[in-house]
């Protein structure tokens, strides 16, 4: 059994990160457009991923745009109490819930042909490796889709987006032990689903 903790230790947060984030937001508050572009480039894809989860693929772009505009407008209110990613996710979550209250949620599972092609190994120098990885990812995504919404939410935030337990607790308004329990249960449910799917696949 390898020392499993070493891989995950790589995720330890940078102690100077929060200071850099506060400085970036001060620059944005002072009207620095380049700083705003940096913020957008760094966080946009992660925000889109959660906007798709909290709303729909169709509305995710608009929600993220709105949230980034909010971040620009209210940059001086960022105090660095939470990480910048968590603060931005708060904005996305609020805007997604506002959007959902206006229109009923429509979950579009269809993928574009290009996306399917990339997952099938298109454009890759090692198609077999990419195909295997895509297959593993597709299986994992299918299993995640079968989780209950609250399980899917916590797995996406904690394991896919890489938020810390404390950040998840801040974002979802829960206590840290509650988050730990929820994460543990959701991961075990996911492992059980994957096991069932693999057994079915083998038959």
């Amino acid at each position, binding site marked *: 059994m390898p020392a499993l903790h070493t891989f995950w230790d790589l995720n330890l947060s940078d102690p100077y990160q929060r200071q850099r984030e506060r400085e970036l937001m001060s620059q944005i508050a002072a009207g620095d457009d380049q700083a705003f572009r940096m913020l957008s480039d760094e966080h946009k894809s992660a925000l889109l991923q959660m906007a798709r989860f909290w709303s729909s693929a169709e509305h995710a772009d608009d929600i993220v745009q709105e949230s980034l505009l909010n971040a620009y407008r209210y940059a001086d209110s960022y105090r660095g109490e939470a990480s910048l990613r968590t603060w931005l996710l708060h904005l996305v979550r609020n805007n997604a819930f506002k959007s959902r209250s206006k229109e009923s949620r429509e979950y579009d599972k269809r993928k574009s042909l290009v996306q399917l092609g990339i997952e099938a190994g298109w454009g890759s120098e090692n198609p077999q490796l990419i195909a295997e990885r895509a297959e*593993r*990812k597709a299986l*994992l995504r299918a299993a995640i889709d079968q989780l209950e919404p609250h399980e899917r939410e916590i797995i996406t935030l904690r*394991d*896919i987006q890489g938020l810390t337990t404390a950040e998840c607790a801040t974002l979802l308004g829960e206590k840290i032990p509650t988050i*730990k329990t929820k994460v543990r249960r959701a*991961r075990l449910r996911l492992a059980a689903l994957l096991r069932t799917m693999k057994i079915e696949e083998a038959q």
Partner: protein
Amino acid sequence: MKHFGNLSCADVLERLDDYVDGELNEVDKKNVETHLSQCSECESFGQSYHVMRQALAELSE
């Protein structure tokens, strides 16, 4: 559920996330490692669980 060292398989299951995250104290970490080195079922489950978490992290790429 079997018992190896100071921990049962259920104890290991409860501590597995903190072990993978490097959040266990030295004593607990040693106890988990002792159990994993002797219990093939937990060792095998731990490996699959670790691979699943790695694969989840790759979904963000």
